């Protein structure tokens, strides 16, 4: 019923959005092709099965966190605690699994569960206490990283061989890490058709209008953070699979990196616009750019500067490519 009443304006808004997404995604797609091409020219062995597997294995944590961030940003929020959630869920999973293959399943559940719980806390603080997402998640990041230190005071612990093995393996010549990225992308294609995700997008586009159209704004905000937290929890597991041990300090750069990936991926920080597929592309572009800088043999001390400049250039390109929105 709500849908019928709101249809005319929704259609025009929808058209507006599709245009917005298309322009921005051209810039993103262009950057992605460019980055892949340069990387392959510089490092031909990138295309071997081993190259793809190890490249994606290192990309996966940032990719997953970028998707998590994308969902929150589309919902009109921001999650600076994403890195801390990754850290907390990974150290909890390490402690739960105790390096035993038999407990790997339990570790998976624990990582996702912890992420979900952290996300729910963020969602409650933002939607019920109505705090600014930026400040609220900065504060909650402090809480989560404190708890991570409690669970695992110093880096260590062993990750079950099953997990690290699977992570590096290929299933029918396709590396597991690639399959996981594809699975996340497919998951999004299903998710975006759900009512929850429509509500999240409407809330991010214009909370007041969404509220007036009977969208449960508070629950949608809560859902976006909870969903995002669960995916960050999964990223925590990817970190473990990649590193082979736990580290309570990991994730410091992941939150801001994920925000950069989201923007390069053509998702407007104002909310309502974009898709996590763009965030996946953004994460791959950013990760590839550091691979490229490594490959051209830039002195170590210059690499961080160059990486920063690349990020700004990419941001400038995607900002120029995106249409201006109503003020």
């Amino acid at each position: 019923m709500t849908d019928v009443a709101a249809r005319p304006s929704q259609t025009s808004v929808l058209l507006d959005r599709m245009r917005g997404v298309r322009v921005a995604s051209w810039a993103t797609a262009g950057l992605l092709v460019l980055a892949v091409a340069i990387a392959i020219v510089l490092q031909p062995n990138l295309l071997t099965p081993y190259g793809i597997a190890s490249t994606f294995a290192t990309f996966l944590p940032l990719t997953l966190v970028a998707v998590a961030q994308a969902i929150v940003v589309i919902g009109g929020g921001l999650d600076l605690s994403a890195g801390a959630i990754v850290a907390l869920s990974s150290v909890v999973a390490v402690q739960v699994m105790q390096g035993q293959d038999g407990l790997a399943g339990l570790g998976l559940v624990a990582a996702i569960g912890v992420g979900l719980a952290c996300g729910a806390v963020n969602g409650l603080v933002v939607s019920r206490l109505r705090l600014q997402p930026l400040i609220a998640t900065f504060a909650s990041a402090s809480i989560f990283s404190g708890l991570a230190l409690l669970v695992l005071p110093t880096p260590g612990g062993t990750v079950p061989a099953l997990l690290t093995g699977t992570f590096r393996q290929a299933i029918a010549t396709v590396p597991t890490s690639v399959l996981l990225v594809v699975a996340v992308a497919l998951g999004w294609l299903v998710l975006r058709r759900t009512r929850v995700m429509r509500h999240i997008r409407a809330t991010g586009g214009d909370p007041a209008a969404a509220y007036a159209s009977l969208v449960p704004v508070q629950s949608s905000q809560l859902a976006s953070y909870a969903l995002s937290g669960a995916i960050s929890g999964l990223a925590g597991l990817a970190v473990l699979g990649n590193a082979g041990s736990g580290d309570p300090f990991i994730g410091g750069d992941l939150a801001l990196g994920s925000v950069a990936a989201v923007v390069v991926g053509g998702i407007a920080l104002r909310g309502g616009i974009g898709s996590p597929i763009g965030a996946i592309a953004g994460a791959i572009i950013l990760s590839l750019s550091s691979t490229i800088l490594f490959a051209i043999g830039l002195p170590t001390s210059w690499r961080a500067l160059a990486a920063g400049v690349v990020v700004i250039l990419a941001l400038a390109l995607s900002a120029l490519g995106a249409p201006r929105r109503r003020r």
Partner: protein
Amino acid sequence: MTRAVRILRDPVVVAALIAVLLVVVGGLLRPGFASPGQVVDMLRVASFLGIIAIGQTIVVLSGGEGIDLSVGTVATLGAILASRTMAGSDALLVPGVLLALGVAALIGLANGLGIVLLRIPPFVMTLGMLGVVGGLILVVTGGRADGRAAPALVSLVNGRDVLGLPGILLVWLVLGIVVTLVLRRTVFGAQLYAIGTSREAARLSGVPVRRVTVSAYVLSSLFAALGGIAMVGYSQQVFLNLADDLTLPSIAAVVIGGTLVAGGVGGYLGSAVGAIVLTVLTSLLTTLAMPEWARIVVQGVVLIALLAVYGRQRRLRA
């Protein structure tokens, strides 16, 4: 609402009361915490954050989602450039400070131009700048920061030369008063509040929106560098990540002080009190000898509680 209630609801008053309360609680739990010497020490540490928060306040007031995520690294870079140049000599103090401020101004200019001309959102532009400046620090230092603070700078921060107080507190006070006057009494201040309230209305009234916006980011970097230089006076030596962690506290100080993140409402007095609240809280938790994890957790919980008192967004229903 009676006058008394209104005053009690003023974020600046609330924050000040919380700061006093924290000091009193600290004094009760650990004798000596509330002693004048300790309080002066806490204020001295608060001054670094407070000076950096001057720029952050100006940027947040300018609206348009204004925020500067690069202040922490800019402060570190300023500290590194200044201390390398002065290299422990008073004669080179002024050149060192000028060099640091000059580079900081260029960084702020780049931030402002990226935001105004390329239309990159401030959050993102300054986030990118965070990476660039971090890289710049590695290039300048080659990964190893050297350089020492000039004795004059050290005694300004660590001495008790002005009426028994460290000179840096006087510097902070003067800066705070000047900034408050600039915000309240000058054309620039009026234009800043105007663009913070509504870019469009300000533009139509003839306010040079772009120029004011760029100035805000230049000022932010300048005050960040000043804060970093003050920190070197305190630590006497420079580290690669000296002030990096002050970025988010600087934003928290602004918000605790009651400045609206949307822009156009607030002032520096609140941010100064916010910086004091955050510093007292940190030093209280340190004094109580809590394990590090508990300290970090309590910090987050208190920040959320503080903000829940008045840093809340408008209710949709209203």
